[in-house]
């Protein structure tokens, strides 16, 4: 199948998935109890005003009308406006209904676009840390299956997956930041604030990389072309770095695609603990404040990112390993 047709098919499937996700989350948010307008206008607002605002925002129309309007907006690149956040900064959920300082409400798209680079920075640094930790342990374990490097890989990854990210974050912040004052921890005020959260995230990702690597490296090592390479006179280092690493890269890439949602979960909690102003913190605040348009926007953007990442991962895998087909 040609590359273009393959891409078209994957993108169409992806669009369908994103549509289903948005329909699901949209319906879900409208059937749960609790009126977001009450939160926006404040507890003291008169009933008539609430109804007026709700009607004004179209929140009293039937669900399918609201959803149609929402999808039409998305197609034009408009994810709507936040319920509680003003365009000029901090959230003011639950403020007084006649607050004159409340200006224009913030656009969901710009809220997401502003915090996404922060999360990307965190995720990339975490990925680098995770690879630095996991590569030596995983490759070594795979080269000596059954021997102690292999066992060490098993032990260390069992311990790593058993460290809940929020607890590890608190403990490390207490030790490294408060007691030893090595790295800053809470909030964001320069790149140094990314280090500790990225490290905690890396500990969460590392065991999956270690496990995938030990299995795939051991698998590659048992293949005949490795024996032949030794006969051809290649040194052990050449074999490991040229043949084994390259062949183990594909499972690693696939892992990245599959574990994306896990990474997302980690980002969410870690940003919350460290008060790191990325997508995760935005999501948690949106849920706490019942900021429905923001929740919807985040769900749609992450679903789209998931779809795209998986397409890129599959393409990269076929580039590395020509035996794979589209």
């Amino acid at each position, binding site marked *: 199948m040609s590359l273009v047709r393959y891409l078209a098919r994957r993108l169409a499937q992806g669009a369908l998935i994103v549509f289903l996700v948005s329909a699901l*989350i949209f319906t879900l948010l409208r059937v749960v109890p609790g009126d977001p307008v009450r939160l926006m206008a404040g507890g003291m607002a008169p009933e008539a005003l609430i109804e007026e605002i709700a009607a004004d925002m179209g929140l009293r129309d039937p669900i399918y009308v609201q959803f149609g309007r929402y999808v039409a907006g998305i197609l034009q690149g408009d994810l709507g406006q936040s319920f509680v956040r003003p365009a000029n900064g901090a959230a003011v959920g639950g403020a007084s209904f006649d607050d004159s300082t409340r200006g224009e409400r913030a656009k969901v798209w710009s809220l997401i676009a502003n915090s996404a680079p922060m999360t990307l920075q965190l995720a990339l640094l975490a990925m680098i840390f995770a690879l630095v930790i996991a590569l030596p342990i995983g490759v070594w374990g795979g080269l000596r299956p059954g021997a102690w490097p292999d066992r060490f890989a098993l032990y260390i990854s069992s311990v790593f997956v*058993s460290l809940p990210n*929020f607890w590890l974050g608190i403990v490390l912040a207490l030790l490294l930041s408060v007691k030893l004052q090595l790295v800053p921890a809470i909030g964001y005020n320069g790149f140094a604030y990314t280090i500790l959260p990225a490290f905690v995230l890396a500990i969460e990702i590392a065991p999956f990389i270690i496990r995938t690597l030990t299995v795939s490296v051991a698998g590659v090592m048992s293949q005949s072309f490795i024996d032949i390479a030794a006969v051809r006179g290649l040194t052990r280092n050449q074999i490991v770095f040229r043949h084994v690493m390259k062949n183990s890269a594909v499972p690693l890439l696939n892992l990245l695609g599959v574990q994306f949602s896990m990474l997302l979960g980690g980002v969410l909690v870690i940003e919350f603990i460290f008060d790191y102003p990325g997508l995760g913190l935005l999501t948690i605040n949106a*849920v706490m404040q019942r900021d429905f348009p923001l929740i919807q926007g985040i769900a749609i953007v992450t*679903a789209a990112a998931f779809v795209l990442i998986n397409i890129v991962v599959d393409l990269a895998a076929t580039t590395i390993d020509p035996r794979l087909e589209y």
Partner: protein
Amino acid sequence: MSAIDISPPAPSQARAKKISARIWSEAFSSIEFRIGLIVFALLVAAAGLYPWISDIDPTKMNIRGKLSPPVMMGEGWSWAHPLGTDQLGRDMLARTLVGLRYSLLIGISTTILMVAVGAMVGLFAGYFGKRIDTILMRLTDAQLSVPMIILAITILGVSRPTIPSIILVLGLAGWPVYARVMRSTVMAERKKEFVRGAMVLGATDWRIMFTLLLPLVLPPIMFVAVLDIARMMIFESVLGFLGLGVQPPTPTFGNIIADGRKYLMNAWWIATMPGVFLVLTLTSVNLMGASLERARNKIYAGA
């Protein structure tokens, strides 16, 4: 394995039992499994027996005895509260052990739910194939690409979290992996002689699926599920930490640690000590799960 297998197909239950027994004994022979089992048994015994041994109520407040540190870790500790007390003078050990019970309860029932749902979907998809397979597998793919964590915190965030709703939300988030594994094994098994033999003898689809295939393919999957118990326990604690788990005053790992975070500067033990118990429990479960998974892979590679 010889190229031509002329032995008559063994009855499936007996074969499955044999494989399961081999996986168990293989795993049991490894040190890490035994260590995990011993630690896990001790923790479960502590969580189960504590209420009978001690009459300390984990929700009973005692403001005069508040913020007392764990044994030998600061001034004013006492053996009455081995892990110290929290900001309201509640006994930390009792709270931690009650938290452990909820963690295990939710972790195990969530895993059972997701294995059950995944196994059913995979069984139907793999056995019937064609249309049913396509529909069920597309559903699985779609579910895998939904950011489940966002969905989970949204559902629990906007409704009031209860134990059943937590189990349901977490369980429904995890089944697709099991559906895939189940489907591929069922597809491989259903082509074998004993299934075709049963068909010739006039067995119904229902009978073949539930009395022949299910007992054969489910046990190996359940070994892998042990790892997911730990994963779900972490999820439960994360939800509790975010305030979306079992609600206070019921103590859970998550909500104790979230509480303790506020007192981190003058009472570090509230947030850290329950975490040590949680990490111990998770490590023991993960060690058992990892060695079971290894044993399973080894047996299947050799069989």
